[in-house]
């Protein structure tokens, strides 16, 4: 089953900069995919198009059979709930503790509070942060913040995990641990798409690689 299908996708920004050109690719359910390429090649733009954070200038992006480009604005939040998003800068909320951060997607989706708390603790446990559930994110190290971000991304059991440079600012050892987390999720059936230029990580996980060069697929 095809989870994500891009067909002849172009993305041009106002001012004429062409971030992506003529991208056609399919990602099947349960795949582990690395999108690699130099800085500014268009890796992040590709992820943003898949998560409906941006819209393609031309071509179609289809996720779970839904055309993202023709989705009405009211439908976008519900499409996003299919994803777990992991950001390089974590995007944690600093006015609440680790547990509350992980609860956020469940609150948004309207989960029963007790069932939600159980899942949030399971997600924190999975990333090894259960003992820090009360900690404000600001007191966590960079690696711990990234783990917290991952816990928040997987707590609602999304079908697709999208991660943009998840190991960007971490040392090799910590990066390896995070890589193993992604592999674990992939092994239980989650489609994982990572944008990264971490060669070591690719070496270890043996994913399918898609390389982008100057906004085009390098085949």
């Amino acid at each position, binding site marked *: 089953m095809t989870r994500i299908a891009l067909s002849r996708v172009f993305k041009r920004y106002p001012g004429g900069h062409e971030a992506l050109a003529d991208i056609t690719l399919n990602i099947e359910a349960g795949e582990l995919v690395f999108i690699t390429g130099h800085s500014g090649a268009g890796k992040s733009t590709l992820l943003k198009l898949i*998560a409906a*954070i941006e819209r393609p200038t031309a071509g179609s992006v289809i996720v779970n059979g839904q055309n993202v480009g023709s989705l009405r*604005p*009211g439908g976008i*939040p*519900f499409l*996003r*709930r299919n994803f777990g*998003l992991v950001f390089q800068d974590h*995007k*944690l*909320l600093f*006015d609440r503790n680790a547990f509350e951060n992980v609860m*956020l*997607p469940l*609150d*948004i*989706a*309207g*989960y*029963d*509070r007790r069932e939600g708390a159980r899942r949030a603790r399971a997600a924190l446990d999975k990333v090894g942060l259960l003992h820090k559930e009360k900690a404000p994110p600001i007191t966590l190290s960079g690696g711990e913040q990234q783990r917290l971000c991952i816990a*928040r991304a997987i707590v609602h059991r999304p079908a697709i995990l999208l991660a943009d440079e998840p190991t960007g600012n971490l040392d090799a050892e910590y990066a390896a641990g995070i890589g193993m987390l992604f592999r674990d999720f992939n092994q239980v059936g989650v489609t994982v798409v990572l944008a990264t230029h971490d060669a070591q990580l690719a070496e270890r996980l043996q994913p399918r690689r898609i390389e982008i060069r100057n906004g085009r697929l390098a085949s």
Partner: protein
Amino acid sequence: MKSWLFAHLRAFSGACGRLAASPLANLLNIAVIGAALALPLGLYVLLANLQGLARDHTPQPQISIFMNLDATTDAVRNIDQRLRQQAGVAGFRFVPRAQALSQLQARAGMGDVMAGLRDNPLPDAFIVKPKDHRVAALESLRAEFARWTGVAEVQVDSDWARRLEQLLALGRSGVLMLGAALALALIAITFNTIRLQILTQRDEIEVIRLIGATDAYVRRPFLYFGGLAGAAGGIAAWLMIGLALLLLDGQLRPLAESYGIPLQLSHLSPADSAWALLFASGLGWCGAWLSVRRHLRLE
């Protein structure tokens, strides 16, 4: 349904938390909203009091029919007969000219003046109580009486009551206009407060949108905040008016009593208070809605 209720409950408690989080700034805000509401509401309360006073102390309108000085007893009896048959007359009494004179003489200081008169200058008169107190009815009665033979003049003494009524109506339109202007001010205040909140929470809003929050979810706590701030402002206004009435009552009562009017200033009725509170929170909600609509689109 349960999760919907729960989401609203969470948004409501979130808004309460936000109110409590920066108490000084919010108290000042609420005081401003309260002052803006207290002006038209306070005027309304004063008018309502005045109106009550006017209703309680306005004498029934009377129509006085003055006969010609040379009117015969027959003519007077004739008028008496016609008044008994006239529809629209609730009752009447006859004041003979002699009685009118003696009443006048009895008044302090008038005795000497009257003593100097050779003839009684006063006519026979009828004092008529009409059934219908409206101006049109009084006027038609007056016209009817004026046509009767032997009648010199007909006076309707409801003029001052009518003027007071007109003044009160003027006051009511003043309250409405002031209320409308300050309602706009209240909307503007909440609009701006919510704008600042959205600016300080820009990052948080971006994140929760990225992880699947609908616009309604993002909007809800702000709307509750606006409604709560409006309601709190309404309560502040109510208290301010209460305090003002307490102070005024102490000063006005001796003055009113010196005119022989028992005065008791009363606050908004419970129903009016509830409406004012609902209205204030509605305005706050409305300001928040406009602000959220304007500022969440921009991102």
